[in-house]
């Protein structure tokens, strides 16, 4: 996976905010994933079609975090979502 990659979200995967969390659900497989507000913001940026590098840049501008930390966190989250087949990455 490269920072120039973008995530694609399958049509049957949807996200809804409930309380302070966001739940992502694959409506066909029933696979689900919970996100805290930071994860939800990353999801939102991914859903806008940004590259992983653009997602990291936006997060750097919005949160007090180092580039190294945010790149690691974004890559970990994207890998988890990909492993659950909630996104594809290319």
């Amino acid at each position: 996976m490269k920072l120039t990659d973008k995530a694609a979200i399958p049509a049957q995967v949807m996200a809804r905010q409930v309380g302070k969390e966001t739940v992502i659900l694959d409506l066909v497989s029933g696979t689900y994933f919970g996100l805290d507000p930071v994860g939800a913001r990353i999801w939102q940026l991914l859903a806008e079609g940004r590259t992983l590098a653009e997602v990291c840049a936006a997060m750097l501008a919005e949160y007090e975090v180092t580039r190294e930390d945010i790149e690691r966190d974004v890559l970990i989250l994207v890998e988890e979502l990909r492993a659950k087949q909630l996104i594809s990455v290319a």
Partner: protein
Amino acid sequence: MSGFNFESPRLQAPFNALPFHEWVFPDGTLWTQFFRTSAGYLLRFPDLADFLVSPDGLSATCSPAPEVTDATAHHLYLNQVLPLMLSRQGKLVFHASAVEIGDGAVAFAAASGSGKSTLAASFAISGFRLLTDDGLVLQGSGPGYQALPGHPSIRLWEDSEEALIPAEVEASPALAFTSKSRFLAGRDIGFCDRPRPLRRVYFLGDGGAPEIAFQRMSAAEALIQWVKHSFLLDIEEKPLLASHFDEVARLANQTICYHLDYPRRFEDLARVRQVITGHAGEKVETA
């Protein structure tokens, strides 16, 4: 409204398509196949019955397999097919029982075999009226939800029957495919035939807790549990699924959902009822 008709018994002919969905028991036994047909949906219960459901979920026609009794077919309709039809009509239907406590409804959501009917029966024979044994239908009402009454009966395995049900309670005819018995509401099992505002929902644990234990669920946890316990006829109808997800998300934002576990011992049920009654009567905490 949901219409239901019987046709003459007939052999289940092979269907010339793959099912788009199946229900399989944990031991691998196939329970239900879901096929798409030009006339709607075919729900096949192998060796028991076929149900042809209209595309809008408003009507169903049952063709029992030879030797299958009307009682068995009707039982399948009430417990399996009707909740799915209601889901196709856009209603919120869940694997949950419900009883009337005070002026509201308290629901117990759980997978089959987890004790939701036993718990509801325990309340029902103790002066709390039954709203439904399973297939709980919820309807939005102002900021909250109402629990609608279901069929005035309750189904129990033999051990729960022996522990809870007075001998004089009327039972429906025995069925070939299950040792569960259905007991009709009446003098001993009170039935609430009016919608009641939903006050509490308890998602039941597996009985591993050494003592009665409640845990407030976050909205996200509640959403996931509501989705897992939903009846859904067409899991490929994406607009309907999205609408269902929206509705369930709204439901999950109600601060009324708890995880509940307790040891599954019949002799403890009176204490469990007492604790639930007290808990359900408490003011709802806000998040």
